[in-house]
């Protein structure tokens, strides 16, 4: 049952707290004189209310705000969006948009070894906000702050977008014949592509973070993912610049093989689980 429908005229969190015995002590005042009881559960409110008449919703509100994850401001916006307030989403977007783009960008940057497409980040944030507006009831203020919820949604969209873009690039490369050259170079891209076709981008990043703990290796993987072929880029990342060129190439190949092997294992472990 929707908690908000239990007691007419009061935000649901008041009623949620009212029915807890520990809060039933007559120390609060209810300012709403027209409180209606809509179902049997809330019959408990009637005797408490009638006997004491001294509940204080502000105190209950303070207690509740310590329990929920959203801030008061976020909560107020959320309630207005749910209620169909025609300007609530516009105000919310104005308030949060830039912050969300910045926060999602830094999240993406910290998890992908520095490379981040901010245009794509902004698009993902827009997508997350518009999806929230389409279905605001999917957001639960008790589970996460709105900011966190939206950044997570945007980051998920971002990962899906880069994975889609990467697959598209790969398909084009195959069509133009570049794929044939790729096949001869064991740099882990095949493993990546195979893995990506089986799991979502979000799952993939979670597994990569778990399976490839070394941040340098993760950055090597990002270069591979972006189709970087130049050995010197890898050599710089791996700190091999001082070595002779042929030795650099050997070491780079070793690193790529190592990552390919790990990706293969990740894929196998994933297949075992499903």
């Amino acid at each position, binding site marked *: 049952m929707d908690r908000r429908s239990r007691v007419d005229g009061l935000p649901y969190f008041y009623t949620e707290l009212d029915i807890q015995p520990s809060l039933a002590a007559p120390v609060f005042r209810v300012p709403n004189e027209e409180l209606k009881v809509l179902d049997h559960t809330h019959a408990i409110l009637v005797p408490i209310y009638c006997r004491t008449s001294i509940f204080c919703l502000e105190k209950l509100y303070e207690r509740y705000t310590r329990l929920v994850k959203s801030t008061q401001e976020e909560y107020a916006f959320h309630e207005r969006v749910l209620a169909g307030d025609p*300007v609530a989403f516009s105000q919310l*977007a104005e308030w949060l948009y830039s912050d969300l*783009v910045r926060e999602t960008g830094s999240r993406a940057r910290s998890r992908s070894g520095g490379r981040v497409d901010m245009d794509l980040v902004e*698009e993902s944030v827009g997508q997350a906000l518009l999806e929230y507006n389409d279905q605001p009831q999917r957001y639960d203020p008790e589970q996460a702050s709105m900011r966190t919820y939206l950044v997570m949604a945007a980051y998920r969209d971002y990962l899906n977008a880069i994975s889609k873009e990467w697959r598209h690039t790969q398909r084009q490369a195959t069509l133009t014949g570049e794929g044939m050259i790729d096949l001869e170079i064991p740099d882990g891209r095949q493993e990546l592509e195979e893995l990506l076709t089986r799991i979502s981008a979000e799952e993939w990043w979670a597994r990569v973070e778990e399976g490839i703990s070394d941040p340098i290796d993760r950055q090597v993987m990002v270069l591979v993912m972006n189709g970087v072929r130049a050995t010197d880029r890898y050599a710089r990342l791996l700190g091999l610049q001082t070595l002779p060129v042929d030795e650099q190439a050997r070491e780079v190949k070793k690193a790529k093989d190592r990552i390919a092997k790990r990706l293969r294992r990740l894929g196998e472990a994933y297949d075992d689980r499903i």
Partner: protein
Amino acid sequence: MTEYKASLKRLADMASARPSLMSSLMLLYREQEGMDDEQLADFLNCDVEALPRLALCRRPRQAPHFRGDIETIAAHSGTDASRLARLVRAAEAVQAMRGAPNHAGTSSLLMAARDREDLGDIGVDTPNSNEGSKDNLDDNR
């Protein structure tokens, strides 16, 4: 490194695919009237910068909420309420002619007829005074 600057306009453009938001109606109206952003802002008596703010507002509900919603949206976006109401009705009429259901799933022409009084209250020409409405629109191009 320069800091990336997010633009609310981009979000507003993305929102044009959402029938529940004003952005979709603004796009229809602009296409129908052959207006660019500056001309639309002129028509609505607002700055161009106010357009994204307007675009992200929820589309006004039908009567009996229509008038109140229009006034709330106009106050928030700094636009002229009667022009805004005219834009909404014109865009809805375009939608109806194209055969697309409006957000409420009701015929826009029927809604337009139903809201005649509401529109009249905020100084908007109703279908009974079509010529005046056309003239006013033309005046503001």
